[in-house]
């Protein structure tokens, strides 16, 4: 009995003495909600963060944030510098968005700067990534939009546009671009009248950004890549697009997407890709109200299909020019033609690939009117 008691006391004392090495108290941490990276002078990194605070009082809670910007040698170094600037200890575990300045991704390999995000066990791998036109710092310095902090605003903006399939769903984890066999694309943000807005997507070749797509293009691009999210709406001219008429647009919502991507290699090692999209759509808006006639509906289907096919071809062309393999052709070659893949110089080969793209569209219903 006495011995057991002694054991218990010794055990308790040891536990009490050892303290808590890895304690990170919530109250002492300062949490970054959005961070941005821009190239600085002399190969340094300009890191900007916005730290969000919520002060809750009896009358409710209030959002505030503060923006800090440092010139650092590396991402981790930036963290150290920031830590010397802010009260409390720096933490990015709850970061929601990482913004990359356009210059950063056009002229630098951004991956070394992201390494610490992959290495740190506490890092926010589910933070979204986006590219900004101009400097990321400028966007973060907006600080508040209405009653929302910039970090929350951009996060929600990206979330809703992801759901509407305007931009792809990308976070730091899915980005990890170690020989994935396809190139990634990121949401492209601009500041429009002082407010951040989506302007399309930025196409990457390897780890460098090479081109951008506009909003309409990016929707179709995502369709072609088979990345349709919850809903996707397309607004197009409903008659021949050369005859300009004031109110001739039709909006369709894609209900179902059937995508066929086939990579074939001919005997002389010519790679050709057949991409076939079949869309089943609902008409959301059709100002002319002629759809009760089957013929007109079929005409509309044909017009839209042709339009989409043309646009798709334009996108493929743009991708070729940008050397952006967003559909994972390389991955397919690796998987199905491993021998050929080993001989290829992919950067040279990719623009040579023949794309045969076609989009066909079928209207399945027209809302509660015809």
């Amino acid at each position, binding site marked *: 009995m006495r011995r057991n008691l002694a054991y218990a006391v010794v055990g308790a004392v040891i536990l009490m003495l*050892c303290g808590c*090495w*890895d304690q990170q108290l919530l109250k002492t941490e300062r949490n970054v909600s959005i961070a941005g990276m821009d190239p600085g002078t002399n190969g340094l990194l300009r890191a900007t963060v916005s730290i969000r605070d919520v002060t809750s009082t009896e009358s409710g809670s209030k959002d505030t944030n503060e923006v800090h910007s440092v010139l650092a040698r590396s991402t981790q170094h930036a963290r150290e510098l920031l830590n010397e600037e802010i009260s409390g200890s720096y933490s990015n575990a709850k970061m929601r968005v990482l913004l990359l300045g356009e210059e950063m991704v056009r002229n630098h390999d951004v991956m070394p700067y992201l390494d610490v995000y992959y290495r740190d*066990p506490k890092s926010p791998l589910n933070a979204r990534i986006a590219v900004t036109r101009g400097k990321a710092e400028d966007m973060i310095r907006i600080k508040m939009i209405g009653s929302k902090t910039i970090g929350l605003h951009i996060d929600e903006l990206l979330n809703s546009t992801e759901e509407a399939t305007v931009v792809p769903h990308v976070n730091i984890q*899915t980005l990890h671009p170690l*020989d994935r*066999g396809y190139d990634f694309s990121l949401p492209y943000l601009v500041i429009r009248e002082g407010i951040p807005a989506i302007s399309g997507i930025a196409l990457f070749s390897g780890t460098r950004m090479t081109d951008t797509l506009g909003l309409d293009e990016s929707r179709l691009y995502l369709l072609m890549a088979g990345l349709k999210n919850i809903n996707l709406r397309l607004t197009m001219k409903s008659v021949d697009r050369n005859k300009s008429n004031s109110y001739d647009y039709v909006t369709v919502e894609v209900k179902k997407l059937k995508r066929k991507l086939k990579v074939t290699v001919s005997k002389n090692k010519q790679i050709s890709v057949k991409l076939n999209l079949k869309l089943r759509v609902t008409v959301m808006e059709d100002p002319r109200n002629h759809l009760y006639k089957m013929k007109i509906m079929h005409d509309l289907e044909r017009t839209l299909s042709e339009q989409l096919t043309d646009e798709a071809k334009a996108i493929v062309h743009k991708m070729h020019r940008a050397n952006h393999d967003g559909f994972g052709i390389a991955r397919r070659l690796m998987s*199905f033609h491993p021998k050929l893949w080993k001989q290829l110089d992919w950067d040279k080969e990719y623009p040579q690939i023949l794309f045969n793209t076609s989009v066909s569209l079928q209207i399945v219903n027209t809302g509660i009117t015809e």
Partner: protein
Amino acid sequence: MIAAKDKITPGQLMILVIQSQIGVSVLFLPSTVESIARNDAWISVILAGGVTLLLITIMWALSRRFPAMTLFEYLPLLLGKFLGKIVHVIYAMLFILACSLIAVQFADVVRDWVFSSTPSWIILGLLLVTSLYMAQENIRLIARFFVLTFGVIFVLILIAAYAFRDADILYILPINQAGIPNIFKGMLKAMTSLFGFEILLFSYPYVQGGGKGILKATLFANLFSTLLYTFLVFTCLIVFSPEELKIIPQPVLYMVKALTFTVFERADLYILTIWTVVVISTVIAYLFMAAKSVSALFGKKRHKGTAPFVSIVIFIIALIPHNQDTTNILQNLVAIFASVSLAALPLILLCISVFLNIKGKEQAEV
């Protein structure tokens, strides 16, 4: 003779074996096997399961000849007193080292993922004290506890299955890229994860029913573990590209790190928590076997008194490795001991038993 009250059912045996097999390697296996067998790692794991099946059958055939005895009771009968003692020491060493290795790997993962500055002796101490509390009991109580914690394995599967969202089946292709030799090498690596079935040597006389039922239960257990490992390896293979797997030592945790559920984020912390329970079970099994063999070495029938000392030894051994190199040495040591005592020795013992026709005196009552 063991009273019917102290016996375990074949179902309990099955879970006992599963829990001893599935341990730390749940997290490591995908990347260790992948490093050799590339994207054919899942084939290696299935093959490893097949080979283990064979080893289990040998072990069972050996145990069946001595249905009322544990390994250390019939070792002297087969090998004579002196040789028997040497083999006995080999087994004891295996269990102690294997247990230390598990503890080291557990402490490493905890250090890397949650507690970067907590000294590892604290984590090791917690692990061993908790396990010791269970391991000093008899096999029946341990089996009960294992059945109880068996459920967490399914939670593990459930969370891991969620990662299929980001999967790309193309990563598996082309099959047989690594080549057959590498697949076999990978199989040898994967084998170490399936060790743990040796608990059969200790539990055989305690299981109710005949030998057939025991074999069936153990084989089912092995099948389950193999399938679980294959599932995890397969999931990791299709979620990560081969280059990523090279630099991620614990892909299962990494895979779920970015998952966000509506009620919680950072699923890796929960997986780690659940995995801790799985590791505790394995440590309990090994600690039990180690304590049993050491106490048998000193001619003791009960292992309750020896268990604390054995766990202190394990604690000290587990404190030695400070870097990856020393851990690897320990790992290789365990691999050598395991292949000797789990593959070679049972076969030799079985041959001796068959050719010299040595059998257990007592027949098990059915």
